[in-house]
């Protein structure tokens, strides 16, 4: 087999698997959200479809597909159709650079887990993709030709622009310490020291908190879900959408939540790296074997799920911010804090070394 055919087949399989993982993860998140919210509010939650209501997400998707697709007469047709596609495409596109585990050896070839985990601009790629994601929501709000949608879209755009700044600046601390923009190399830095526990969260606690808060705002989740604040805006930017178009926004929201969780675990909690790497080597699970890679994937997955549950937990615990409070927090607290954090990190690196 030539290298080109092998590469094409390899990436085709990887892309198919990853897209399926993202979609399945979204439905798992929906189920978790319903169950956890029920648990927090002392209810039972979905328990009719399948054992413990496990098939509820499938029933939801079938319902969305069967619904009539209504498009408002005054809507700008092309963009109205494009907006949900754009939002979902961007949300899934981010997964191209996320590393799921290190690598496995197949024959003499090395296959990395992830489509392009070693690309040397991985961190920036994710930021660029989330910044493109603003268009989907803004266009959805504008093309619907409804005042609620427009207000929701504008709020969302303003919010995402504001929080992208502090998000990017808090990330710079991690990049400065690791000295690279490649996601895999950032993980390798966290693995190679302190018995595999040189996690960035210990080196960059302030940066981690800023990033955590900003990612809540970036994914439009409570306490920052102003774009879809029900009491004021009906449904926000997706008010005029129905059927699977609404479903796509829904999917994108949950895919973004998974992205944010993945990003948090990659940058601050070691991603796929296993603690005590020497121990795993000593019992025969060396780097490049399938069992080691599966263990690494498990390590990544556990961290991912913990963050997803945390996202859901916060949504059903904390009330929504007011809009001016949101902007104050973004511009007057998080932005200066992230600049100070960057300044201190850079000074420490210059004067004390790593």
């Amino acid at each position: 087999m030539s290298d080109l055919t092998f590469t094409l087949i390899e990436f085709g399989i990887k892309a198919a698997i990853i897209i399926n993982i993202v979609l399945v993860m979204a439905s798992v998140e929906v189920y978790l959200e319903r169950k956890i919210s029920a648990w927090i509010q002392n209810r039972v939650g979905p328990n009719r479809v399948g054992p413990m209501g496990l098939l509820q997400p499938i029933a939801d998707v079938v319902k969305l597909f069967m619904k009539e697709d209504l498009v408002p007469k005054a809507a700008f047709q092309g963009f109205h159709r494009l907006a949900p596609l754009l939002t979902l495409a961007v949300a899934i596109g981010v997964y191209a650079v996320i590393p799921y585990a290190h690598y496995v050896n197949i024959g003499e070839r090395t296959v990395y887990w992830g489509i392009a985990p070693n690309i040397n601009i991985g961190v920036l790629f994710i930021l660029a993709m989330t910044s493109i994601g603003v268009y989907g929501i803004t266009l959805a709000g504008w093309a619907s030709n409804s005042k609620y949608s427009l207000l929701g879209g504008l709020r969302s755009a303003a919010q995402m622009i504001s929080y992208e700044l502090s998000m990017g600046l808090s990330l710079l601390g991690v990049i400065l310490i690791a000295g690279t923009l490649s996601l895999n190399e950032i993980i390798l830095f966290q693995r190679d020291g302190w018995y595999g526990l040189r996690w960035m969260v210990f080196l960059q606690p302030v940066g981690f908190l800023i990033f955590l808060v900003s990612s809540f705002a970036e994914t439009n989740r409570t306490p920052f879900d102003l774009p879809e604040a029900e009491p004021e805006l009906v449904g926000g930017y997706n008010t005029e959408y129905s059927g699977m178009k609404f479903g796509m926004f829904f999917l994108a929201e949950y895919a973004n939540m998974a992205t944010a969780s993945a990003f948090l675990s990659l940058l601050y909690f070691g991603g796929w790296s296993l603690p005590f790497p020497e121990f795993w080597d000593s019992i025969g699970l060396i780097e490049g074997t399938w069992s080691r890679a599966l263990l690494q994937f498990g390590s990544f997955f556990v961290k991912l799920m913990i963050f997803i549950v945390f996202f859901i937990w916060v949504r059903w615990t904390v009330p929504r911010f007011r809009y001016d409070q949101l902007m104050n927090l973004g511009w007057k607290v998080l932005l200066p804090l992230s600049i100070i954090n960057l300044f201190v990190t850079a000074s420490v690196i210059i004067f004390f070394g790593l």
Partner: protein
Amino acid sequence: MALTTIFFLILSVVAIGTAIGTVASRHPVVSAMNLVLHFLMLAGLYLTLNAEFIAVLQILVYAGAIMVLVVFVILLLNLGKEDSLETGFTARKGVAMTFGAAFVIQILILFTSAGSFTHEITDKSVNVGQVKNLGYILFTKYLFPFEYIALLLLVAVVGALLLGKKKLFLERDLPEKSLK
């Protein structure tokens, strides 16, 4: 045909098409979205030149930040019928056309003198787009222009603040009873 040539052809055709779409379309939002697509295609072209960092900055800065603000403003302004903006030939348009024509001729001369569109990828050209090299050059050889641009941006920020705060200054200067 090499893969990069195929990508180059697709990307450049779409880039030219969206550039024309940007200028030709009457609707401001269609125009803006065409420009966004154009920036994405440009980023793809940078990728074929192995300049990943510049490609992703192109998306992050132009498509992700500047154009988002432009779209934001377009949506807020509630523009009226674009047909009413149509005007006849003015001196300003004549000057713009002259300069535009001169620019097109310059580009044509450049293209014809270049001879061939193919380029050699050497080790040196591969490394130019890397973050480390870019940073090194910015902070050594081009330090003065870099700092100068930073100063320019600061002036722009102060100017924007001054324009935005104008109303507040006026209110403060008013006698107290008129505020109530």
